[in-house]
């Protein structure tokens, strides 16, 4: 006798692998949604030294030396209202870390694009979220670039981070159909059992 009953049972297929065609969104290209950061380590170091380290010593939000928002609802409110000032804003997002909901992240690029002010969307490197945990639950930080922000920091971010681009919003061009295959399984039902 070779093999137990369990191993014999595994040799009989109960389910069959199937590939189900599904339509993907022609406009959600992750590579284009988030602007490219040229020198990621430099930007992350600058964010840590210029902003996060200083915030770590503050007791409450009123002590913050700059106008910044870390709550998602406050950020959305800021970006969707015209405040009458022309100062650009930086939005730092930990989009590569686990613990930040994907649905939430999917809303951010378009929200920035639609904002009445100039928004620089800066994606932070993997494992940046723990540094944000004390100030923001989902690793979001919106900073208004007024006179109080260090000019060197502003120039470095401007130089290293691309601007937001939505080619499918600015130019009308038909995108080819993106049909994907979803790998799943279905039970194998024998004809005798059906009767």
């Amino acid at each position, binding site marked *: 006798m070779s093999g137990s009953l369990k191993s014999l*049972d*595994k*040799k*009989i*297929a*109960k*389910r*069959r*692998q*199937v*590939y*189900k*065609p*599904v*339509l*993907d*969104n*022609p*406009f*959600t290209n992750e590579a284009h949604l988030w602007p490219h950061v040229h020198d990621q380590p430099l930007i992350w170091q600058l964010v840590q030294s210029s902003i996060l380290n200083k915030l770590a010593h503050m007791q409450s939000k009123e002590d913050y030396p700059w106008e910044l928002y870390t709550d*998602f*609802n406050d950020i*959305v409110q800021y970006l*969707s209202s015209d405040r009458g000032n022309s100062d650009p804003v930086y939005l730092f997002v930990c989009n590569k870390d*686990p*613990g*930040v*909901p*994907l*649905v*939430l992240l*999917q*809303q951010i690029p*378009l*929200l920035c*694009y*639609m*904002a*009445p002010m100039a928004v620089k969307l800066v994606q932070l490197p993997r494992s940046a979220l723990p540094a944000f945990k004390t100030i923001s639950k*989902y690793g979001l930080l919106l900073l208004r670039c007024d006179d109080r922000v260090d000019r060197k920091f502003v120039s470095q971010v401007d130089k290293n981070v691309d601007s937001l681009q939505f080619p*499918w*919003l600015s130019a*009308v061009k*038909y*995108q*080819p*159909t*993106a*049909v*994907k*295959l*979803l*790998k*799943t*399984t279905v039970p*194998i039902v024998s004809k005798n059992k059906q009767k």
Partner: protein
Amino acid sequence: MGKKAQAGKTKPKIDENGVLLVPPPRTIANQDHFHRLNYLYQLSAYQTRPTPAAGAGKGHTPLARNYIKLMDLISKKTKTSLLPTVKRTICKKCHRLLWAPKRLEIARDGALSVVCGCGAVKRYNVAADPDYKTYSEREGNLLDS
């Protein structure tokens, strides 16, 4: 004859969960349905293109909504599926594209709510499991055709 036929046959591959492994198909049946759905979605997107100057797709967009309604009907009639990345951008009630929702907030219970111009709310309970991924978003489940 029997020997030759048997030599050509390969043993079916079964994994440890008792699943009969099958290679992905080379062609996709009824591709024209997908082309039609894709075209309707892009027509609607063109009609509701939000621009920073215009504010958002807040205007009255009956034609765009009708295209999405048609797309929804066709996908149901032809039993063709759409990925959650498509469905999340569509309001189930008024068939508006939710590129620029009326309101976007994290509610008191921690759920992300996306409020459409018609008042319908899409709620995602992100607080329950921030790392949640739909089946198609999980690695290895979605293949390029």
